[in-house]
């Protein structure tokens, strides 16, 4: 299964992102950002299954949330710990 990482500026921002996605029925998990994707050191991301990426993009845009970056095509071992 493929995953996406929505890389966020802060833990709070990641939590807000996850809350928006959950409200849209998109399962998500807040995870530590793997160092290769981090910006300026430690940070948090939101992990979702890749099949939700279009819906997620629309939900975030509607909520006025702009992630730092979105990394696609990741396998579970590349995305930090947590479900899903």
């Amino acid at each position: 299964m493929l995953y996406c990482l929505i890389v966020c500026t802060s833990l709070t921002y990641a939590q807000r992102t996850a809350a928006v996605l959950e409200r849209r029925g998109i399962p998500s998990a807040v995870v530590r950002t793997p160092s290769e994707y981090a910006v300026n050191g430690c940070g948090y991301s939101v992990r979702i299954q890749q099949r939700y990426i279009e819906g997620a993009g629309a939900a975030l845009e509607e909520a006025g949330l702009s992630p730092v970056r979105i990394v696609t095509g990741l396998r579970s071992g590349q995305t930090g710990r947590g479900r899903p």
Partner: protein
Amino acid sequence: MIYLDNAATTFTKPAEVYGAVAAAMKSMTSPGRGGYASAMRAADTVFRCRETAARLFGVTSPENVVFTMNATHALNIAVRSVVRPGMRVITTPWEHNSVLRPLRAAGADICPVRAELFHPDSALESFDEMTRRGAGCAVLCHVSNVFGCVLPLDEIAQVCRMRGIPLIVDASQSAGCEDIDMEALGARFIAMPGHKGLYGPQGTGLLLCGGDAEPLLYGGSGSASELETMPAFLPDMLEAGTHNVPGIAGLLAGLEYVLRRTPAAVRRHERELLRQTARGLSEIGGVTVYAPEDPARQTGCLSFTIGDMGSERAAEELGEMGIAVRAGLHCAPMAHRWAGTAPDGTVRVSVSDFSRRSDVAALVSAVRKLTKSKG
């Protein structure tokens, strides 16, 4: 003990608050410092607290809710972010030292409005007139911590919006029992303690941010760790160091209680108790009660004096009779100079949602006994 010093700290908390603090201490570590379960439990609790506060106070984004140690800490951040040396800052005569001292330290030109006690129209009129002459900022309390008088915040905020004056609100005595809507007010900052009307533990406070801010403390934030400067985004910019997670968990439980109960219901209950207090005390010869004819102009607390008996002595005697009230200047010296109760101050009675009619009746009875024994 009958506790009537809730304007300092509410003593009885909703049962859920005690449980939440204990559970957090047993199961949570520090948010933003790891991805393991106890850190993420802490992160969830902290975020839920931000969301709940945002919902209660009309804040558009949870990241604009910043955790502080208390209202004083929050006010220091707000003043530091806005006030510059020599800036003309409009206040009220009722300000607490948590407003006055940061303003003095920032070198502000402090200009209190001319307001009569319990006459909100006079405060608004004076505020309007003073801001016509220009002001860099307005910093004022919503409710006086000495007399409980309620300032016309909506109207004052409207004047600020019209004239482009940043507004900083000290909601120490109003959060939880008055309606506060950050977005509707357009305030730059609203500061409040967690341990009073929000029923959280001591050591908690909130700063609601409506604009740019400057850090007061510098240190680790768990984000942007490569940088030697604080992150440029809220809330991390203002939250250096480890969070008070047990306190925030308790505050969350307190906020949920207030949301369920509603500030309007709390306010009704407290006003009824204050009206009972004012009525009872004013029937005792030699007692001066500071209360308005219209109960809607007073919230949470009430001051009184007993003839020429010093306020400290009166409170001490009441303490010996098992009633906890506060005496003196209540950290608001200007309020007493303005109201004519300086230098001795007043005895302050302050209630909470957990105060009962029997508490107030016991106070009135004790004051009656005190005046008889001294007469």
